[in-house]
């Protein structure tokens, strides 16, 4: 296509100072393939050619999958939904980093212009005992749901919606609670942590409610139950390396983990739960 275009320019006789360059890339992908939970799995290499720098990373895999389907092969399975960075499903570790080399984004927000022609890209699923691989790059993250169900909720009276601003909340507190609430539960914190710890996730979920008046009713039982569930699922402990916050697409801060620790200490000291 570009050759034709350049030829046409030549034929016009106009002296073009630049030929139009083909920016499309040829890439070698090394992707984790695993049939099911019980399969051992392994890496397979694929070539994708003519990848536009404007594609998102997921679109690039879509192109690969089209080729695979045409060749009657099993396409690469991967989780995706909103493709705009809010659903948190597009879990993959790209060249050793959750959601790839850029900060503050999910995989669907990563564009191929972050790579260069000829690159070798290794793509792996989240690795954690609590996130077993279902197939290829798809992992089971229901452990996060179970942690949420254990305590990540508030008691609300049924009936008419209350008036806005009926309960005054200082702006700074509201902002901080909202920052914590931006957690999309993608699991990048677990994927990045050397201990596969879920502390950043749990701390965001505990924080968003602990700071607000509506969250006070279950405040102590919430943190006790969520931490107990976190342990039950087999997530590791926090060594405070900060790898989680560095990879978090929503920029959840480490101060939330300190708050979780405070909430835990407070609950264990003051709650009446002795079981």
């Amino acid at each position, binding site marked *: 296509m570009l050759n034709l275009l350049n030829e046409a320019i030549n034929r016009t006789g106009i002296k073009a100072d630049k030929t139009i360059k083909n920016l499309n890339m040829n890439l070698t992908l090394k992707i984790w393939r695993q049939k099911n939970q019980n399969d051992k799995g392994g890496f397979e290499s694929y070539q994708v050619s003519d990848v536009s720098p404007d594609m998102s990373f997921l679109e690039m895999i879509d192109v690969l999958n089209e080729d695979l389907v045409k060749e009657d092969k099993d396409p690469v399975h991967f989780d995706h939904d909103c493709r705009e960075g809010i659903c948190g499903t597009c879990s993959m570790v790209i*060249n050793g980093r959750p959601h790839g080399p850029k900060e503050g984004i999910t995989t669907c927000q990563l564009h191929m212009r972050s790579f260069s022609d000829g690159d070798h890209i290794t793509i792996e699923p989240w690795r*954690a005992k*609590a996130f077993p691989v279902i197939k290829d790059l798809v992992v089971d993250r229901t452990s996060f749901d179970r942690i949420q169900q254990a305590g990540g909720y508030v008691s609300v009276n049924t009936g008419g919606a209350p008036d806005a601003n009926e309960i005054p909340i200082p702006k700074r507190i509201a902002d901080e609670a909202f920052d914590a609430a931006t957690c999309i539960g993608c699991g990048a914190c677990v994927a990045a942590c050397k201990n596969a710890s879920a502390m950043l996730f749990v701390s965001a979920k505990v924080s968003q409610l602990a700071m607000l008046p509506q969250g006070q009713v279950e405040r102590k039982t919430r943190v006790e139950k969520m931490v107990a569930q976190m342990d039950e699922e087999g997530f590791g*402990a926090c060594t405070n390396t900060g*790898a989680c916050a560095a990879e978090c697409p929503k920029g959840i801060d480490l101060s939330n983990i300190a708050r979780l620790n405070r909430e835990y200490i407070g609950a264990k000291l003051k709650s009446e739960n002795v079981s």
Partner: protein
Amino acid sequence: MSWFTKAFSTTIGRKLVMSLTGIFLILFLIEHLIGNLLLLNGDGGLAFNEFAHFMKYNRLIQIGEVVLFGGFLFHIIDGIILIRKNRKSRPVQYAVSNKSEVTSWASKLMGPFGIIILVFLIVHMYDFFRFKYFSPVADMPGTDISDLASLVYIKFQSVGYVAFYVIAMAVVGFHLYHGFQSAFQTLGVNHVKYSPIIKGLGVLYSIVVPLGMALIPIIIYINHITQQI
């Protein structure tokens, strides 16, 4: 399990134990450094021996020593439990390792550093602490206090032993370069005003205290060589 032991058996609970015992050990190291510096007093070890004598027979210090043993024991046991749990949390490793630059390499090696310190600790107990209670050494001439200082002076005449000691102190420094501030984060202390101070103190401590500890055998060794010439 009672509610109390349960509170310290979760991952956060075990980290609280690491943090509290870690801070206690940090305080202990200051006392240990001050004591050791007496070896350089230039009095043939008299001040050091007197200090050691006091530390052995003072009732309060004796109680402190039991607490210190408990502190080490809990730190080591919970440390090993956490190392194992953390390893089990990721049964399959990544083919390409995580390269995010913000995490300090010291923070990723807390476990290995701890194990090295444990090995050093065992050698250290056998080489020095043993003589405090179990294999009493001769008294200093003209006094009735044990001459532990001579034991130390002789040990550090070996360049290999000095090197081993210096390397061990470097590892303690790395362990605390991350550990000092980490212990406060574990306790939930994270504040715009105080966290930078804690981080600064941690860096200062992790350099000054291990360096002081390591300089003592180096100076003893240099003294030994220069006296021989």
